[in-house]
């Protein structure tokens, strides 16, 4: 089993949150739609899958291939799920962000 990494980039964090927002229906198309709606920018399928495979390599995401469907020309879907370790990592990132925000307030900026 791969040891989860304790560092994630901004886009990786967004992808993790998008997967969480889609619940059981998280696959390429829905994740991309959620990201595009949330960030209001176009996301290429190549950059999404590059990030998803990196997250898998880091042990933050697990995936499984579903059955082929007619609307996809007989191609299968790959579903994604965020692991528990990634969820705690996301919470850590949020907490760090909050601490920095508090420091900023104390500094009077």
């Amino acid at each position, binding site marked *: 089993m791969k040891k989860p990494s304790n560092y994630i980039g901004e886009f990786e964090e967004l992808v993790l949150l998008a997967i969480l927002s889609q619940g059981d229906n998280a*696959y390429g198309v829905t994740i991309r739609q959620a990201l595009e709606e949330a960030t209001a920018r176009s996301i*290429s399928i*190549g950059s999404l899958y*590059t990030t998803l495979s990196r997250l898998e390599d880091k042990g933050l995401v697990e995936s499984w*291939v579903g059955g*082929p469907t007619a609307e996809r020309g007989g191609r*299968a879907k*790959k579903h994604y799920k965020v692991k528990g370790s990634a969820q705690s990592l996301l919470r850590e990132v949020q907490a760090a962000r909050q601490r920095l925000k508090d420091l900023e307030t104390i500094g009077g900026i």
Partner: protein
Amino acid sequence: MMDGNGNGPTKSSASPGDREQAEQFGRYLGLFPLLAIVLRSISLARQSTIEKKTLPLRPPFNAEFVLYLLLPREEMEVVSGDLIEGYGTVLERFDKRRADIWFYKQVVGSLLPLLRRALLRIGTLVWLGRILRRLVPNVGFALEVAHDRHSVRIR
């Protein structure tokens, strides 16, 4: 008109009411071509909608081939499936030409991250190869010797 004995034309005995009816009928007859055109255009529109719905999902071959070149085998089917799903939506809303343009746009937009990943993989392999060569300088020679010994044993 002929009379009962066949003695040539006789004066018409049609009343004004009958004439009016005949004129009205003529007017209706004149409407038939128009009605036929309307019905024909409705049936053509319905037919084109049915054709659009039953069109096979065939994205541009060249664009799909580029994906096959750049993607690892396990991702090929999944990524092209995602794109075909979007392609079907665009095809349903617009037409094949526009759906093709959409598909090309998606592939071109994905070229940079996919190329970067492919180059990184190749770069990593080259780098590992160099390290291995430094660590074991005579690895090629050792392999050749082992192979020769093996073939001698077989003989």
